[in-house]
């Protein structure tokens, strides 16, 4: 008869057998499995159509640009950039830029990377059917031609300071031979976006929807074999779970810890190191200037400029930032992140003045309040809904705080929390009254501001349908000005214009802190594209842990 003691002994022996039988696995310099944890999941990995930050993180490892920003992140001229796919470049004349591709560059299916791929890429990024959000950044480039298989020629319409930056920053070169046959109106749902083939340091291996995504190092990468063998992204429902997994050792890196509480939790964990860096994100509560679902008519509440200005003045943005972020964010003086050189606390903004706000609302007909304290005009209460994605704890928190602030001046805001993909689609379709949007910006204001706030951005990233001819003109002026000081003045005028029009309330611009496991050496975090330098990180052989040794 098997008594309990015997069973226990057998069980222990069994477990020991299992534990001891684990093979030694990978050792040496090219091992390592890095687990990134992310509160969102990519919708696609095809560069021209992706928008999610984590999608950009992943595709940055798989696709290369012609050249990339240097450590100074200066976007003017062409001297502060480093070669990537292109080994060198020169100006044939003031409007023609010539790139010479590195002959060693290969697609991950073996084909060489050619200049016709570059021409194909430009055509794709500017194709209205593909409808890439990055199209506006390329508007001054009239065409890209392939002089021969390794020479790509860019033709510009006019001279301006960031010509080189525009040529290289937005476009990740695509494999023409694999994408030519995909109809351009189906790129958003194309199968290539779920199993991409690129030319970068890492190649795509697998993607389990809702769970994880895996990339593996390309040992033949022409710019040097990456030291870390596998990169895995784990998707979690929200930031809290992500931090918990990080702290518990189930993940190695998280790009933005967001709140002071999370930073404290990570700092209390000895195996994690924190890396502060200038934040590239800013967020706003945006008002839909047109009626939901009917872009021809103005919004019944927010079509009125004074109403928007009143709401903007009713919010104590500084206190909100302190409550949610502590020291890890500040109130932006307009639609900008801490990364941009145009950041200037002297820029004129609408003040925090609830009395003014109340007076303005009364002047626009919203003077009477009902029993609950909500303002109404002709029996119609001042009530609207704000759209927030469930994946962002910070935005949900802001929604509640703003609900409170608005309630105090008699405005009833109700909260709609939907999943991120529904949020994106509703935003794009204009199916909302207001939303809280966060943008991760490029290093330069010219592309971001254009995409999100000018008339040209409507139908792309300008979800609010904000259109001001004055603002458009001011932005064009600023983008084309060569002299730094004049440019700064011009940008200031543009930002002040959008501040006074108040299409949105600019809530916060983050100061980021990333967390990475200490066993990883050579860690740098680039403010504009966080994990861009992962291929130069390494895990020293004496620091390998169990999952690093996995060889598969």
């Amino acid at each position, binding site marked *: 008869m098997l008594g309990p003691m015997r069973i226990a002994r057998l069980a222990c022996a069994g477990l020991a057998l299992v534990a001891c039988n684990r093979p030694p696995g990978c050792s040496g310099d090219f091992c390592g499995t890095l687990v990134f944890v992310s509160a969102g999941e990519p919708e696609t990995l095809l560069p021209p159509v992706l928008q999610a930050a984590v999608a950009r993180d992943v595709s940055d490892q798989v696709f290369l640009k012609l050249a990339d920003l240097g450590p100074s992140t200066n976007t003017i001229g062409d001297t502060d950039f480093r070669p990537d796919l292109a080994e060198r470049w020169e100006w044939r004349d003031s409007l023609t830029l010539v790139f010479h591709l590195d002959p060693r560059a290969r697609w991950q299916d073996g084909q060489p990377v050619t200049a016709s791929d570059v021409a194909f890429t430009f055509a794709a990024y500017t194709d209205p059917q593909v409808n890439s959000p990055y199209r506006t950044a390329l508007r001054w480039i009239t065409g890209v031609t392939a002089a021969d298989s390794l020479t790509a020629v860019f033709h510009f319409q006019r001279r301006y300071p960031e010509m080189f930056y525009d040529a290289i920053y937005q476009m990740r070169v695509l494999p023409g031979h694999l994408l030519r046959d995909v109809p351009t109106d189906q790129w958003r749902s194309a199968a290539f976006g779920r199993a991409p083939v690129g030319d970068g340091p890492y190649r795509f291996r697998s993607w389990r929807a809702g769970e994880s995504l895996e990339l593996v190092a390309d040992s033949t990468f022409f710019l040097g074999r990456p030291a870390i063998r596998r990169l895995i992204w784990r998707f979690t429902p929200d*930031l*809290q779970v992500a931090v918990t997994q990080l702290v518990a050792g189930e993940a190695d890196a998280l790009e933005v810890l967001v709140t002071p509480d999370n930073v404290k939790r990570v700092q209390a964990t000895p195996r994690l190191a924190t890396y502060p860096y200038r934040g590239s994100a800013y967020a706003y509560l945006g008002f839909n200037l047109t009626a939901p679902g009917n872009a021809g008519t103005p919004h019944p509440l927010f079509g009125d400029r004074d109403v928007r200005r009143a709401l903007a003045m009713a919010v104590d943005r500084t206190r909100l930032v302190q*409550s949610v972020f502590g020291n890890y964010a500040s109130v932006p003086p307009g639609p900008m992140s801490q990364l941009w050189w145009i950041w200037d606390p002297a820029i004129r903004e609408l003040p925090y003045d609830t009395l003014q706000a109340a007076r303005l609302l009364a002047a626009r007909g919203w003077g009477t309040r009902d029993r609950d304290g909500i303002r109404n005009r002709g029996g119609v209460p001042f009530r609207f809904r704000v759209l927030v994605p469930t994946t962002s704890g910070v935005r949900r928190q802001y929604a509640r705080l703003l609900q409170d602030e608005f*309630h105090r001046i008699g405005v009833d805001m*109700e909260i709609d929390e939907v999943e991120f993909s529904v949020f994106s689609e509703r935003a794009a379709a204009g199916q909302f009254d207001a939303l809280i949007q966060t943008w991760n910006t490029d290093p330069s204001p010219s592309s971001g501001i254009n995409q999100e706030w000018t008339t040209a951005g409507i139908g792309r990233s300008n979800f609010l349908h904000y259109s001001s001819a004055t603002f458009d003109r001011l932005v064009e002026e600023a983008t084309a000005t060569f002299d730094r000081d004049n440019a700064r003045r011009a940008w200031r005028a543009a930002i002040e214009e959008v501040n006074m029009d108040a299409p949105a309330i600019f809530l916060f611009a983050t100061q980021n802190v990333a967390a990475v496991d200490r066993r990883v050496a050579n860690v740098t975090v680039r403010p504009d594209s966080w994990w861009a330098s992962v291929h130069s990180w390494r895990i020293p052989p004496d620091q390998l842990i169990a999952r690093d040794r996995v060889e598969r």
Partner: protein
Amino acid sequence: MNLRATLAIIGALALAFLTVEETRRRAKGSSTGRRFFGQQAASWGLFVLVFFIALALAAPWTAPYGPSTTLDIVALKNQPPSWVHPLGTDLYSRDVWSRLVYGSRVSLAVGALAMLVAVTVGSTVGAMAGYLRGGVDAVLMRVVDVGLAVPRMFLLLVAIAIWERLPLGVLVLVIGLTGWFGTSRLVRGEVLSLREREFVVAARALGAGTPRILFRHVLPNVVAPIVVSAALGIGNVMLLEAGLSFLGIGVPPPLPSWGNMIADGAPQLATAPWTTLFPGLAIGLVVMALNAVGDALLDALNPRRAAR
């Protein structure tokens, strides 16, 4: 915690204690009452229930702050329990105790109202099926079979999916309408055995109409199982409401309910566990009290059960 609130809470405790004592004294007169209080847990359960109801009714006094009053969103958020805030503050610097008190109004009301809907529909259906028998019984009981087969949460998810934004009143109605099936079976069983009793046969012989028989003679005798199922039903609804609010589809903010307090506190569980802990404990206490009272009622109204 200010003086007025402290006094009000003591008042609620005293009221609960006195109510239990008084009820116990009066109950000694009947065998049902004696059986009810024979259960140790019954007095505790009654005490807890009366206490929470008193708290809820006297909310403006027992709660030092309003339910949505943000005290200082920078300095006073996520404060641990202290003398001033006995249960701490939450992410938006709202006093947890005050929210708990106001939340009890919402949670208890949702529980009671939904249960009322469920018990009313269930008793009516059960009585009709049990009394009328035949075709009516068959059809109604098939409906009940279907209702019992679909797990309640899924049924609620379907309702919420289809009508995207449910106002709170409609939500309560829907919760009630998904929970009457068990009661109807119970009532049907009782009515089936009652309908052959002499007083019912006599009433029928005297020419009384069916509705009159049902309401004057049959249902009053079915009160016992209905009351028990009601007591247990409220607990179920409160747990269900908590679950719905946790998923984000229950009581909408800023109106506090114990369920959405847990949901709000969940992302801070590691750094501010009190925001989640206390609402959960409150739900546990009240449902426990309801279960205890329900069990005691079951014993009290059912002398046939074996002595414990």
